[in-house]
């Protein structure tokens, strides 16, 4: 399911942006980065063009730094290309409250002024708390707030799967 969904998203990204001109992908840490690299591979297969891929850590932009119980680990942000006047596709695994995306938008505009920022997610599980929507979604999965959606990827989890877990 994951590879087919990513291939479809890659096609949609190319359709909407009319090719790879000015296109770049930025994955949100942690799993969004792996998904962004996979999308870049899909685009390479379709168009035979390379698009730059960056990674974004949003820890320092969170609105709940003082609230969360588990201390977040600050990871590296690596965007070694110019995003000014580019069409930037943000990539994440799960879209839920929209707060991560809000933080990512704040972080991204500190790097420049893109022509547009679009959002691609593997799973949209609903329950938005901010006015955020995905431009590309692999699958809409209606969930309860008592559940969590876990995306597992071979790069880190040795398996490709999406599972819904009941919170205890």
């Amino acid at each position, binding site marked *: 399911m994951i590879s087919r969904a990513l291939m479809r998203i890659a096609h949609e990204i190319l359709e909407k942006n009319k090719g790879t001109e000015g296109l770049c992908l930025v994955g949100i840490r942690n799993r969004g980065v792996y998904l962004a690299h996979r999308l870049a591979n899909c685009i390479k297969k379709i168009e035979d063009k390379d698009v730059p891929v960056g990674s974004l850590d949003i820890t*320092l932009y969170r609105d709940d730094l003082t609230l969360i119980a588990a201390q977040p680990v*600050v*990871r590296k*942000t690596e965007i070694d290309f110019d995003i000014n006047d580019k069409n930037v596709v943000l990539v994440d695994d799960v879209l839920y409250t929209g707060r991560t995306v809000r933080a990512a938008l*704040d972080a991204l505009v500190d*790097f420049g002024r893109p022509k547009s920022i679009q959002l691609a997610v593997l799973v949209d599980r609903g329950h938005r708390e901010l006015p955020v929507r995905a431009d590309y979604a692999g699958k809409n999965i209606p969930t309860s707030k008592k559940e969590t959606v876990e995306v597992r990827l071979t790069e880190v989890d040795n398996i490709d799967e999406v599972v819904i877990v009941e919170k205890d």
Partner: protein
Amino acid sequence: MVWTRKDLLGLEGLSKEEIELILNTADSFKEVSTREIKKVPALRGKTVVNLFFEPSTRTRVSFEVAAKRLSADVINIASETSSVRKGETLIDTGKNIEALKADIIVVRHNASGAAAMLARQVNISVVNAGDGWHEHPTQALLDLFTLKEKLGRIEGLNVGIVGDIAHSRVARSNIWGLTKLGAKVTVCAPQVLIPPAIEQMGVHITYNIDEALRQADAINVLRMQFERDEGTAFPEQLEYFKNFGITEERLAKAKRNILVMHPGPINRGIEMSSEVADGSNSVILEQVTNGIAVRMAVLFLVSQGHDKKYENTN
């Protein structure tokens, strides 16, 4: 690994894992200073007070830049211009800063243990920016960070510390940090500048600079603190340079890629020649750049440890 301390007082009390957490966090923060907009909102709305009872430019400026790149508000208090001159005690000053609802005090004081004493008396975070001859943890952390960045590891490295070991908090903090992370440390100085019982900290002693250089992957050259000279045991400047100064001739006999570090400010022609200070082995200015990332990491982590503390009391 989670950071739980509200303060950073020294490296002696930290575990290997805590030191590594700071270094890894600093590694992530380094990129912020390369952005067009060199700022992240992590400490937005927090107030950092630099409380300096000793003259300092580079450490204070480095802390100030670090705090500002985290979006904190920064207030500088220097003892020459504050009520300290009217006889206010360190604790009173600290409690007043706490009453102003500041979040972090960065303190430098000429008495060993001053930061620890202040940390016990206030609930807000305290970061030691140098206390007497005791510790200067952020300097040692940035030295460790630079070593790891340049040489890829710390464990197993041979590191020489050259110069006034006796009066140096930088040396002490470095020895704690390096030995905890598995480096082999050799200290080198004239006999009068080696403190008694230093070998109990797990270091090797030599009085011969060429011997110190022979095996070293890096040397950390300390500043000769002539302002602390009370007319007793200090060697004469030219004599020191002749016997212990790092020159190109001496480096030629060392490992080719040896790193030359110095916490600054350099006395050119005393601890090392200008050619060495500006040469290809020198990483002195990279240390300054890395100092910002390390201090950002420290301010961020203690503010997180601080938040947890309040949560627990609610």
